[in-house]
Every structure is written in structure tokens, then in C-alpha cells.
């Protein structure tokens, strides 16, 4: 689960990670109150969406930059009015962009130098890893590619936690000394505590800055959480912003369906995540384009299939559907009956290819054949994929 920068920074402050003074607002009326909490002078105006690349993004009305520096609070108020309610397109949002519904104002900081700092899981060692670099405020992938020696990593032993010597070593590698070193050390330790105690999946600060007065501040904050651990963090669940999520994905989650919308025109309905991914792959292999990822899980009950069809048909790009069910334990005839009833209930008009395999499959196929519906049966995944691609192209 992702949260907004302003929410992440509130968490930072709670855990003793210094951030510039800031205030969020969701309406022009609130701009005045929010700005009143900040000191006079240079102010940053930051669009709050769940995507990176905001600074270099462009709004759909042509206005450039989702993050702006303003000399005065008065200017900040005017710029904020142009961002709020506008749709921001960045390299991470896709062409549709995201509507900006919250503006975050912060006091602009004097920057001495920018750094990069992140904490996440290192899958290879199954340990948390702290990643830091002297090259902050830029695309870190590019730094990792062009000058990997500038990326420093610290693996944390979960049995002992982050050790002081590891923090000292990292700070030395970043070239920090004196008050900066002391402040950075405290910040890194506190950020790690936050990562660990909140079950964060990733914490990224880019840039982390030093100021001419020796302070160390998190200028930006991207935080996401492990969905499996949310049950023990109601205070984090409360930060969820449904405006940032695809309504179809929210609807899907109500029926224990895992759905992700894509750009293609062949929808798929599959049981199992691995099989669902491969179904998308095989559609593309035979020249089609998948419209979605949809995993109905191990069961595929009638209600789930009906809900899945409704969600799929909510996507106006969809020109055909491929159902791929490997009924290992489930009776294929129960699944077939569910598909037939679902098709009738939603009044499906689009081409439908069904590949059914597994337990009691002969009866399942007979049910599909006897239904009188205009659905096509696929003998295996390859056959079904080729058939739906051909039907959609016709």
C-alpha cells in the first residue's frame, strides 16, 4: 500500500526523521490556513499523487511541473490553484495521469548537498538493505548503471538490528563529518526504526539534503507498506487514499479477485497468479494484447466469475475474453456451470473462448456445449489463445 508524501513526512516526524516544515491542503480555502503555518519566504508547492517523476511531469492543460519553487507564499498560493484538480502526467502515471486532489506546501530549504537514501528488502539475502549515495536528487537507476561505485549498501541482520558501526561506516562513505555526520547518523537510525516497526516495504528519500547550518533533512519521502502486515497497523490503513486506486481494482478486491488493468483488448480470467501471468504472455505470443491480469484464486465460484465478468466488461477497450481455468481440486463442472450462469446474467455479447482442464473436465465441457451459448472451447492454452486472438481480429 502506498501513501502520499505529506503522510509519509508526518510518519517521519513521529519517528524523529527531520523534514522541512510543511502543511497540506485539499481546497483553495485551505491554502490560506496551510500557508499560515509556514515561515515567510521561499515555498515549495508539491502535487500529492502516488507516482514518481512529479517535478518533471506535465499537467493535461499544458502547465508544466507538479513540484514548483516559489519566491513567496503569495506566489505559492497562485501556483497551487493551477495544480489542484488538474491532472498530472509523469513517467510513472501512464498517459492518463492522476488528478491532483491534495497540495503540500513546504518551506523551501537551503541546500548544501543532495544525497540518496532508501531502505527496502534485499531478496537475495532476505534481509533489509539500506541503500545510500552521494548522488541525490537525480535518477538513481542512472547512477547505479553509470557509476555503481557511488551506490553504498548496508545489509541489516534482523537478529541484531542496525549496528552503530554500520551507520558510521555508511556516513564515512557518504563523506559526512562533524555535525552533519551526527545528524545523519541519527536520521538513518530513526528511519530504519520506522521501516522496521511499521512493516514498510520501501522507504525512499530522494533527495536527502545537508544545509549550510549542518542540518540533515528528508526533502522528499516515498513510503509503501507490506499489504500482508496491514492487519497489525490500523493507523496506516487509515492513510489509504482510494482516489489513487483504480475503481475496478477496488471492486475486484471485494470479491477476492486480483485484477490489474492493462492497455490491450483481450480480457482474461484465470485461476492462479502464475497461470494468469502466463495467459497474458501467451495472448501476446500469438499476436494479441492482454487487457488485464485477473486471478480468481483457487476457487472460481459462480459469484466470483459473475463479478469478474462485470469488471472485465467495465473496460470499454475489451473486444474478447479468454477464460483459462485449471481446476485441480475444484470440479470443472461446477466452474462450467458458474461460467454459463455468469454469461447469461451479464448478457455477454463479446467473443468468449474457454479453456477448461482438470478434475471432471468432460462433464464441464459438456455443460458448456449444452448451454446454447456462443462460446468457443479451447483444447489447451495455446489453442485457446490462438482462437481468441483470431476472433478479436475478425
Amino acid at each position, binding site marked *: 500500500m*502506498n501513501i502520499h508524501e505529506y503522510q509519509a513526512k508526518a510518519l517521519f516526524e513521529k519517528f524523529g526523521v527531520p523534514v522541512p516544515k510543511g502543511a497540506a491542503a485539499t481546497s483553495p480555502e485551505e491554502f490560506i490556513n496551510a500557508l499560515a503555518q509556514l515561515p515567510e519566504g521561499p515555498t515549495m508547492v508539491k502535487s500529492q499523487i*502516488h507516482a*514518481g517523476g512529479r517535478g518533471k511531469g506535465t499537467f493535461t492543460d499544458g502547465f508544466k511541473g507538479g513540484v514548483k519553487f516559489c519566491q513567496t507564499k503569495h506566489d505559492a498560493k497562485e501556483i497551487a490553484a493551477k495544480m489542484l484538480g488538474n491532472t498530472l502526467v509523469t513517467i*510513472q502515471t501512464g498517459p492518463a495521469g492522476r488528478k491532483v486532489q491534495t497540495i503540500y506546501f513546504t518551506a523551501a530549504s537551503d541546500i548544501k548537498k543532495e544525497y540518496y537514501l*532508501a531502505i*527496502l*528488502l534485499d*531478496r*537475495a539475502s*532476505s*534481509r*533489509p*538493505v539500506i*541503500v545510500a549515495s552521494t548522488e541525490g536528487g537525480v535518477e*538513481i*537507476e542512472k547512477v*547505479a548503471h553509470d557509476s555503481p561505485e557511488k551506490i553504498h549498501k548496508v545489509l541489516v*541482520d*534482523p*537478529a541484531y538490528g542496525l549496528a552503530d558501526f554500520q551507520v558510521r561506516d555508511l556516513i564515512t562513505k557518504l563523506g559526512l563529518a562533524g555535525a552533519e555526520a551526527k545528524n545523519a547518523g541519527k536520521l538513518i537510525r530513526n528511519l530504519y526504526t520506522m521501516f522496521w516497526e511499521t*512493516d514498510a516495504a*520501501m522507504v*525512499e528519500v*530522494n533527495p536527502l539534503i545537508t544545509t549550510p547550518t549542518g542540518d540533515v533533512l528528508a526533502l522528499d519521502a*516515498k513510503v*509503501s507498506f*507490506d499489504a*500482508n*502486515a496491514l*492487519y*497489525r497497523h490500523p493507523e496506516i490503513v487509515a492513510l489509504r487514499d482510494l482516489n489513487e486506486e483504480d475503481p475496478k481494482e477496488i471492486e475486484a478486491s471485494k470479491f477476492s479477485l486480483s485484477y*490489474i488493468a*492493462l492497455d490491450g483488448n483481450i480480457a482474461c480470467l484465470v*485461476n*492462479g*497468479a*502464475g*497461470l494468469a*501471468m*502466463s495467459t*497474458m*504472455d*501467451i*495472448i*501476446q*505470443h500469438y499476436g494479441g494484447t*492482454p487487457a488485464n*491480469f485477473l486471478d480468481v484464486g*483457487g476457487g472460481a465460484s459462480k459469484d466470483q466469475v459473475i463479478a469478474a465478468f462485470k469488471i472485465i466488461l467495465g473496460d470499454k477497450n475489451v473486444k474478447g475474453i479468454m477464460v483459462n481455468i*485449471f481446476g*485441480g*481440486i475444484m470440479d470443472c463442472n461446477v466452474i462450467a456451470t458458474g461460467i454459463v450462469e455468469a454469461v447469461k446474467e451479464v448478457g455477454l455479447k463479446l467473443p468468449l473462448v474457454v479453456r477448461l*482442464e*482438470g*478434475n471432471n473436465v468432460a462433464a464441464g465441457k459438456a455443460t458448456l456445449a449444452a448451454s446454447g451459448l456462443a462460446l468457443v472451447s479451447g483444447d*489447451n*492454452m*495455446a*489453442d485457446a*489463445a490462438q482462437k481468441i486472438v483470431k476472433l478479436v481480429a475478425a
Partner: protein
Amino acid sequence: MAILITPETKILIQGITGEFGARHTKLSLDYGTKVVAGVTPGKGGQFFEHAGHKIPIFNSVADAAHATGATVSAIFVPPPFAGDAILECVDAGLDLAVAITEGIPVKDMIRVKRAMQGKKTRLLGPNCPGVVTPGTGEGSKGGCRIGIAPGYIHKRGHVGVVSRSGTLTYEAVFQLTSKNIGQTTCVGIGGDPVNGTSHLDVIKLFNADPETHGIILIGEIGGNAEVEAARWIKANCKKPVAGFIAGATAPAGRRMGHAGAIVGGAEDTAAAKIAVFKECGIEVAATPSDMADALLRAAKAKGVTLS
């Protein structure tokens, strides 16, 4: 010989009285698997009964193992308690813990994996379909089925299958059995970012198993486990290996930050993994329908008989 488990392996079920655990315990018993104990704290002394079987339930894994000689556990307990259930297997000194549970917090698994370092217990999963060593009876009955895989799609034979994904494993096994090619053992290692046994661990076991003549290695985007296994195969494995990577069309960039890209490395996309497979002499299945055929091609090229 098969790997990890044989038809003689005695298993216990943690969470045997839950709906999910009970359903799959019955299926395992029907398959002929030697389920000898159940564990549900607070229900020790009761029995799990099914089709003439009367399985004693214990309060702890240690009690169950001590009383029945069980060496392997299948874990069906809910996510908040699953990490603890795995540690209980480690403490009891079991050979293998198979964690079926889906949705365990990553932090719990980080701690469990650290605690398992240097201990004898091996972990499969979590979030995995389990492991099957098929038997020689009708529909491969008489084998050892631990977890949630459909038993009847298997057939006793000479191919090893290892995969992160459940249904994709069934797909591969079904293709093999449909072509009359049997399996030694089919292993689901689970789809979670922190898991116990890796692709490479299982490949090493298959390589050392004289009964296994060929291997199907199924992977997904993300992480570098498949690449690590492929490089080892190139250097050490003479057996024919077919590979498939799911997720070539999975949407990239559904994340906020960039740190994952630098920690994950350049080799975690489907295209990169497929390229490494080819470079390491693994026959790549072009589509998921091609997995068994890909292994047949690899076996033919090496002059190996699979059935």
C-alpha cells in the same frame, strides 16, 4: 529415489482442524499419504477422522513428532501465526516444513529465515502449493502429497518439476502426464519474496537424484533466483533442463520509488531471465503450453530417455 519426500514419509498437519487444512488432509489421506498426526494448540487428545483413518491431534509439533515419528509438517495455519508455526517445526527438529499459508508478513519471514540459519530443518514456501512424490497406483495414488496440488494429475516417473507458482506447476505436470512422462517429485517453492528453499536448492537435489532424468524449471519475473539456478546448471548439471519464465507482459513501473530497480538488478525481467536460460543451455518453452515439449527437445538433444 525422488527428492525431499518418499511415499513412506510420515507427515503431520499444523492447522488440521481448520477448514482449509482439514479439506487437504482428507485429499492427502485419499491419495495414500502417511498423515500420522495433526497439531492444533488446545485440541490435543482429540482425533481427526476420515474414511476409516483416525489421526491423533497434539498441542505441539514436538509432542506430535515425538509420539508418531513424523519428520515433515504441512502448515495451514492463518498468516498471523504461520511464522511461529514454522519456528515450532525448527525447534522440534523436523526435516522439512512446508508452509502453504498465503499472506505472511514479509518481516515475519525475514525473522524466521534468520532464525533457521544453521538449523537442520528445511523450509518450502511459504505461499506454495507444496510438494508431491507420485505413487505407482491408479491416478498416482500411494504417493506422498503435501499441500494443495491435485494428486491425480501426476504419474510416477523420472522428471523433476520446480516452480514458484501453483497452477503453472499443475499445467506442467499435466502436460507431462498427458504425454505419458512421469515425475520423480514436483516442488512448489512459493511466490513470496522471502522464502525457504530456492530454485537452486531444488535443482541441486534433482541433479543428485539418480532417478531424475530431466528437469522443468518454472520461474517468474522479479528477483534473481532463476538466474542463480541457471548459472549453476550451466556449470554443474548434465541433465536436460527446460525452462519457462512467466510475466513477459506484466506491467512494469507499478511502483512509486526506484530503489527496487537497483537492488533487484538488471536481470529480473522476463526477457533478461530468458536470455540467461538460453546462454546456460536451458531449453526455453516459448509458451506455457510448450513446457513438456521443451523438455522433450532438451532430452532428445542430450540422448536422454525421460519415460
